[in-house]
Each structure stands twice: as structure tokens, then as C-alpha cells.
């Protein structure tokens, strides 16, 4: 017994000495979509710990999706156990600023002598800017692109990327030809990504935002054109009401010729696809010159720490800066279909990488088109998303045929929700 006690005392003493020797600053961190980003952080963490041995990053359980991320943070704010840094959906940052949970990054940026502010695209910084102050730095950014099964496209005589469609009218025309060639599902258009991203894509394509001066802007001419374009696409291509998962399976299995979705799916499609040639190409527009703009998807890192300890806050900032710029950000592109938000990372560190992975470069070529993925302000923000989802679904299922009527209905319902 005595011996055991002595051993225990020595062990405890040893541990406490050890702890004092290391005395690390702990930064708690949480991110979204573990199935996409686990690999990314497995690469970033060792590099970061080697560069900053005095900081320890402690990972919390990942959020399931962006909505879950928002809800988790809101709950943690109430119960008082916020993490220090959190990765949130690009269009979900505003609510954390409104509630005073996110901290302004301006004081930290001001202290950085060589902060490459111009390394970030303006539209990306705008997403995390509120009242002139930056609250979130983009971490992983995506844009919609076209995915093509070149084996199927060859049946209608398209063999080179330059021949791929530039407008939605061309897409509809090709659908007819593909169907005549015996392909039952020529095209799938992922309208169901949160139900509103692709609607915003068609709006930005015409250079119009979906939220203008705080009001829902579907009542505009651009709104009607967006809905009519969807109807033309869904009817002309006989697009079935697939779920996102079903569509991805069918595309990977080589049953769908043209597939329009986020560049972020590229990693998953490349891993699961059958033996056929995949080529990505620019997202079509309404005119041959292509879209005038496209909404950014993806997420941003925010400083949400409640700590008053300057050392801890400084450590959190160090981590936040590391993952959003330079080498840390480059790992996002290496491990996922997302793009790093930083020009420097794209053009300097990754130049060779894109040469070897041309499919991942399509979205980078579209970067000048990048626009804001607009949030719907107020407590009903998520309910608005659902109303839009339900509305577009009626076009897909063939229930809605009168687009002006659908536009009026959606405009009324969303306006009523936003007013509250």
C-alpha cells in the first residue's frame, strides 16, 4: 500500500511538472462537415503545432451542416461554453454578429504588419463584413460549375471542352439530342442545395441580387427570368425530382450527362465515379458571354471566444489567421473541391496543383464572378429558405406551370416572413 501511494504521488508530481513545462495555450475550435474537412485538418494541424509549439488546438465535435453550426453556437452562447474559433456558413455569419457573439477582427488586422488584405477577394471579405468591420475570414469557398460526362456527351458530337454549352438554351437543346440518343436523364441541376443557392445563382447571372435594400427582390424582371429559366431547364431536360444524394449516385454511375452543382462535390464525385471521363467547365449563363456573377458558397472562420485572457485571444487569432491564409489555406484546395479564399494561395502556392488538376481549376477561373451568398435577415431566415425550397420544388414536380403566379406567391410569403 505504501509503495502504491508513493508511486501515485510521484506520478502526480511528474504529471504536474510536465504540465508546467508545456504550459500551452488551449484554443477550442469547431468546424462544419467532418466528411469533407477532416482530411484537411489532419494535414493542417501537425504543421501548425510545429510552427506554434506553445498553442494547442482542441477540436470539438464537428457541426453536421451550416444550420446545425448556427444553432450550436446560439445554444452555447446561452449556456456559456462557446469555443474560441468557429467555422460558420458564409451566409450565416450575420446572425452571430447581430447577437454580439462574433468579435470584430479589425483590431487584430490592424496589428498585422503584413496582413495581405488584398490577398482576399473583396466579395469574400464583404460576406464577413458588418458595419465596416470584418468579423469573419473566409476559409473554404465554392462556386457552381458544370460537370460533364464526356463519354455520354460524345454521343451528341461533343468531344472537347470548348464545345460544351455556354448558355442554358444550349443546355436545353443538348438535352433533346441526348434524349434522342437514348439517355433518359440528360441533366441534373442541384436546385436543392439549401433550396436557395441556385436561385441566387440565376439572379446574380443577370447581375441582380435576390435581396435588394433589405427587400426580397424576386418581383423584379430578373426574378421572373430566373423562374422561367428553371422551368425551361426542368421541362426541357425531363429532370426527375432526385434528392442530392440520389443525383450524385446516378451521376457517378454514368447515367447523367450534364450535372450542375457546387465545385465542392468534386472530391466526392472523383472518388466514387465509374470508368468514364469527367470534365468540369464554366457555369452556363443566359448569354454566350456567360454569367455576370455567381454566389459564393462555403464557410468562414469567426472569432467567437468569450475569454478575457489576452494570451488566449492572441492564440485564437494566430490559428484563425493560419487556416485562412498561406499554407493552411492551400491545404483546403489540396484535400477538397473547395478553393482557398486567398489570391496568394491560389496563384503562388497552388499554380502547379491546378495544372495537374484542371477540373479543380474551373471554379478558380470563375473567381472574378464571385458575389455574395445573401442571407435573409431576422429570426425567420431559415424559414425563408424553406419557403423558397418548397416553391422551386413545385416547378420540379410539375405542379407549378404559371411562373408569374409562383413569383407573386413566393414574393408575398417571403415578404411576410421578413417583415417580422
Amino acid at each position, binding site marked *: 500500500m505504501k509503495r502504491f501511494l508513493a508511486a501515485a504521488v510521484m506520478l502526480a508530481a511528474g504529471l504536474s511538472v510536465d504540465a508546467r513545462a508545456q504550459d500551452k495555450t488551449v484554443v477550442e475550435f469547431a468546424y462544419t462537415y467532418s466528411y469533407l474537412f477532416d482530411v484537411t485538418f489532419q494535414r493542417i494541424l501537425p504543421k501548425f503545432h510545429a510552427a506554434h509549439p506553445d498553442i494547442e488546438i482542441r477540436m470539438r465535435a464537428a457541426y453536421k451542416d451550416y*444550420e446545425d453550426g*448556427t*444553432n450550436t453556437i*446560439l*445554444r452555447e452562447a*446561452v449556456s456559456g461554453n462557446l469555443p474560441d474559433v468557429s467555422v460558420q456558413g458564409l451566409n450565416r455569419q450575420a*446572425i452571430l454578429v*447581430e*447577437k454580439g457573439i462574433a468579435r470584430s477582427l479589425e483590431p487584430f488586422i490592424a496589428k498585422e504588419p503584413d496582413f495581405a488584405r488584398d490577398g482576399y477577394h473583396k466579395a469574400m471579405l464583404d460576406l464577413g463584413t458588418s458595419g465596416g468591420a470584418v468579423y469573419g475570414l473566409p476559409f473554404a469557398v465554392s462556386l457552381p460549375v458544370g460537370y460533364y460526362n464526356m463519354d455520354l456527351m460524345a454521343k451528341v458530337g461533343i468531344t472537347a471542352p470548348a464545345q460544351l454549352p455556354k448558355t442554358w438554351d444550349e443546355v436545353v437543346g443538348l438535352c433533346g439530342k441526348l434524349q434522342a440518343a437514348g439517355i*433518359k*436523364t440528360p441533366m441534373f441541376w442541384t436546385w*436543392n442545395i*439549401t*433550396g436557395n443557392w441556385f436561385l441566387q445563382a440565376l439572379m446574380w447571372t443577370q447581375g441582380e441580387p435576390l435581396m435588394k435594400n433589405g427587400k426580397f427582390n424576386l418581383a423584379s424582371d430578373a426574378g421572373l427570368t430566373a423562374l422561367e429559366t428553371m422551368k425551361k431547364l426542368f421541362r426541357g431536360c425531363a429532370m*426527375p*425530382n*432526385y*434528392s*442530392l*444524394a*440520389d443525383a450524385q*449516385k*446516378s451521376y457517378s*454511375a454514368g*447515367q447523367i450527362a450534364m450535372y450542375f452543382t457546387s465545385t465542392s462535390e468534386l472530391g466526392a464525385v472523383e472518388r466514387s465515379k465509374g470508368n468514364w471521363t469527367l470534365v468540369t467547365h464554366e457555369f452556363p449563363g443566359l448569354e454566350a458571354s456567360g454569367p455576370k456573377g455567381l454566389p459564393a458558397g462555403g464557410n468562414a472562420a469567426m472569432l467567437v471566444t468569450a475569454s478575457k485572457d489576452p494570451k488566449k485571444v492572441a492564440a485564437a487569432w494566430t490559428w484563425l489567421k493560419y487556416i485562412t491564409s498561406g499554407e493552411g489555406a492551400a491545404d483546403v484546395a489540396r484535400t477538397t473541391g473547395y478553393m482557398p479564399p486567398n489570391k496568394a494561395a491560389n496563384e503562388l502556392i497552388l499554380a502547379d496543383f491546378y495544372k495537374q488538376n484542371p477540373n479543380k481549376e474551373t471554379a478558380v477561373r470563375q473567381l472574378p464572378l464571385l458575389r455574395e451568398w445573401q442571407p435573409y435577415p*431576422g*429570426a*425567420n*431566415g*431559415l*424559414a425563408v429558405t*424553406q419557403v423558397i*425550397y*418548397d416553391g422551386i*420544388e*413545385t416547378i420540379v*414536380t410539375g*405542379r407549378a406551370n404559371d411562373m408569374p403566379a409562383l413569383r407573386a406567391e413566393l414574393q408575398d410569403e417571403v415578404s411576410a416572413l421578413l417583415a*417580422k
Partner: protein
Amino acid sequence: MTTTTVAARRAGWAFVAPALTLMVLILLLPIAGAALLSFTDYSLGGSAPAWVGLENYEKILTQSRYRAMLEATLTYVLTVTPLSIGLGLGAALLIHSLRWGGAFYKTVFFLPAMATLMAMSIVWSFALHPTLGVVNATLGSFCGTGWLHQWGWFDAACRNGFPLWLGDRSYAIWTVCFVGVWQGFGFNMVLYLAGLTSVPRELYNAAEMDGARTAWDRFRLVTWPMLGPTTVFVVTITLIRSFQVFDIVEGFYEQGAGPSRSAYVILFAMYEKGIRENLIGIGAAIAMIFLACVVITSLVQQRILEKKAHYA
């Protein structure tokens, strides 16, 4: 009042006190809290909650999305309850009449009930994939079999492709119901098997002597009445479990609840409003309606069926 009765009474209260405290703390208080919240517009992301009176309930009764909720819930409950009870009883009777091999069938039919419904709905959504799933592939392999083409539906499907079981609004809720029955009837079967073992053999012999010659007569006159208490229990449990359906819809649909909200069952609505969209007020109102449904069904059950049930 004598001192002993007072003491006995005190002792009685002391004995039930722990159970009573727990019940108030973990059951009644949260229910009261939810009831209070249902009269507010509280939302996690929004400003301070305001008292809105019956507005949330009014919305549920008037707006079309909630009409879809009531429709889907009732369709599910009214389809799954009788079917899973009927199939459960049928399977139990068949297995009970077997001389050997009963254990095998028991296991097979009970397997779905043991599996997690959430995981099973993911498996089903693979099986029901419109072009790659095993269901449509199997159906498709019968195309070309002459006599089946006389069935119009099948003939059309062979030409135009088999249905999107989950994505077509004329099939979605029925597919959800099918998975519900598939999962639920094994459990009812086990309950009925237990009930059957307690029916005394002599009753059958006596009935036969009294002139009950056919199997149907024996079932109608002996088995069914003797299963009364089991039936009360099975019906109550199945009804409540049907009201509780959630995991199938959540597993099948990433967003929304089936095409045109055709599978927008009540618990899913509660989750979507209260948890996903943060609108706690309306979520609490749906929870209250759910609670009322469950309480009313069990009370009606008890009243009607207990009177008729014959306890031996």
C-alpha cells in the same frame, strides 16, 4: 382523526414523494414550460420573446403547410396502425399453428423491429434509388414478361421508367407507410404470440363440441375474444408509435419532407420548426398538439376497448 391514521398518511406521502418529485421535475414542469412557450414567438436567433396568444395555434389550423402536416400524419397513422396490427396478428396465427420452424419465422419477422429505424431508412433509400436501387432493378428485370404487360401501370413503367418512390408526390407517403409497416408488424407479432400462448387448449375443445367446426368459427369465438387484453395493448402502442414516426422521414429526405410536403408528419414538423429553424414558439405549439393527440387516443382507447375486452 387518530394519530395513527395521520402518521400513516404522512408515511404514505413520504413514500411517494421521491416518485412525485421526479415526475414533476422531469415530466410536468417541462410540459408546462413548453405550453407557456407555445403562446410566445420565442426564437433562439431572435429578440426577446413576446406573448402572441393563440397566434401559433391559429397558424397551425389555417396555413396550408400545416394542413399538409395533419394530412400526412393522419394518412400515416390510419394506414400503418391497421396494417401492422393485421399483419402482426396474421403472422402470429400462422407461426402459432406451425409444428416446427416457428423460431425461424419469428426471428425473420422480428429482425426489422430490432434494427434502428434511422439506419434502415438509409438502407431503404439506397434500395429505392430510382435507377440504381434494387427495387426498380428487380421490377425492370420482369419487363418483357408477356402477361405482366397486361397490367397497365407496369407496361407504362417499362416504357417510361419505374417510379421515383421517394421523389414523386403520389408515391412518397405510401412508401413511408410501407417502411413503417415493414418495421412495425414484427413487434405486434411477438405481442400476439405471447397472447396466443395464454389461450387455454380446453376452450377450443369445448367450442368444437358446441359445434364450432371451421377454423374461422374457432377464431371468432375463442381466439379473438381471448386476445382482447393483448389487442388493447397492441392498438394503443401502435397508434402512439405511428404518431411518433420521425426517423423514416428524416432519413429519406435531406430537406423538406417529401415532394410537396407529402410526408410532413407531425414530429418532423416539430423538429423542423423548433430545432432546425429555431422558431421555438411554433415548435412548442406543435408539440402541444402532438401531446394532445397522444393523450386523447390513449384515453379513448382505454374507455372503448377496456369495456369490450374480456379479461379471463
